[in-house]
């Protein structure tokens, strides 16, 4: 369990009033530090009360901005404010014990604001890589969605063999045997162990699951918990992806259905077609109808206008 912490951003002119307020409420001053960023120096002030750390950030302070000191409320801040001034070049005013920029007496001016060229290159490279990765992921998702529209899951497309519904028998083989020998004899022979060539539609997925369960049982508990968590996460991901694909599928094919009521003439034409082709044909016919209606409407309006 880590120490609970809050992170807030405040403006520069809110800093001193905030310090006064927190002092009044009994907060304890923890520390002040500065972080060098491209857009200026970020100053962090940390306070604590009842076991919770409160971090306040004053963002992007530039060297021309004057920062008021909080040492009139919290004297122990003087070390950190002197340090921020000397190492980061922040213009701190009214520090209670002021070393005048010579606390550490370093030879380099504001040394912590220096970022070496090697570092800069690394950071830029990482930023570009992150951006490229994000773009690639987005493109992949779009491509997957498009693919799902082109190739939806097979539904009512003739005699589709559903392995689970079949059990371990082949319907075709059964039908053949029964037509040759009769139902009762087939059953008797099967029970006796014949038809060894009969292929069992193995539930591969279930078998893989069983093997994995066996492996997990042999692992130490911590590792087992990790593996299970990873599997659950993967299953959730797959379900989500499928749901997403299904949703996009529906969007592509069913959007038009939910929008407008189906014209009976068009419905007649498309009722025997497979669903995706049906959608396309319907779209085309509806578009044609819309065009004709528009043309007619335009002609009517013109006629009406002409009549006025």
């Amino acid at each position, binding site marked *: 369990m880590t120490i609970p912490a809050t992170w807030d951003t405040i403006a520069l002119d809110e800093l001193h009033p905030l310090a006064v307020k927190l002092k009044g409420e009994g907060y304890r001053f923890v520390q002040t530090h500065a972080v060098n960023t491209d857009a200026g120096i970020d100053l962090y002030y940390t306070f604590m009360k009842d076991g919770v750390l409160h971090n306040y950030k004053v963002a992007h302070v530039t060297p021309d901005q004057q920062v008021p000191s909080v040492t009139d409320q919290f004297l122990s801040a003087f070390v950190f404010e002197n340090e921020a001034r000397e190492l980061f070049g922040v213009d701190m005013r009214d520090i209670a014990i002021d070393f005048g920029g010579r606390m*550490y*007496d370093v030879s380099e001016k504001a*040394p912590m604001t220096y970022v070496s060229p090697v570092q800069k290159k690394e950071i830029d490279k990482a930023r570009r890589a992150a951006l490229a990765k994000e773009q690639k992921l987005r493109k992949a998702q779009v491509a997957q969605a498009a693919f799902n529209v082109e190739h939806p899951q097979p539904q009512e497309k003739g005699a589709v063999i559903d392995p689970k519904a079949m059990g371990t028998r082949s319907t075709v083989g059964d039908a053949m045997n029964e037509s040759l020998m009769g139902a009762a004899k087939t059953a008797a022979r099967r029970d006796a162990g014949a038809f060894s060539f009969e292929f069992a539609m193995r539930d591969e997925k279930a078998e893989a699951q069983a093997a994995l369960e066996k492996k997990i049982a042999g692992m130490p508990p911590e590792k087992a918990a990790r593996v299970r968590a990873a599997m659950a996460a993967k299953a959730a991901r797959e379900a989500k992806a499928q749901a997403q694909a299904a949703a996009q599928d529906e969007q592509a094919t069913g959007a038009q259905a939910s929008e407008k009521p189906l014209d009976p003439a068009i419905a007649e034409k498309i009722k025997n077609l497979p669903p995706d082709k049906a959608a396309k044909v319907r779209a085309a016919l509806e578009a044609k109808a819309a065009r004709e209606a528009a043309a007619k409407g335009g002609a009517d309006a013109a006629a009406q206008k002409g009549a006025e």
Partner: protein
Amino acid sequence: MSFATKSPWVIHYDASSCNGCDIEVLAALCPGFDLERFGIVNTGNPKHADIFLVTGSVNERNQHVVKQIYDQMVEPKVVVACGICACSGGIFHDCYNILGGVDKVIPVDVYVPGCAVRPEALIDGVVQALDILDQRAKALEAKRKGA
């Protein structure tokens, strides 16, 4: 053995050390390793000391202090750089406020590396420093007699 090496007194100064080597220097003087059996006593006054044990590297501010302590010591004297930071700057050699090892400001006679320096290595270094101190004392004696 000349008079200077019978009971050499040390002065210890922490330049910009992390204190690891300092506590090992003090541990060497304590009953665990007992440098005091050589007659070595830790003094605070540079004018009483023969051996200067420096720990830590030299930075902008303490270079003057190190130089001043060395100058205040009386001949014959030896300097032992304890720990890798005093020898060459150690892990901090590329920090912006570090100039380098102690040999940037004063001449060092014995380098004892280690992070933190082990008391056994320190004893070894001090005993070697005693040899150098002996030579220097004899040379000083000869010069005084000759001149």
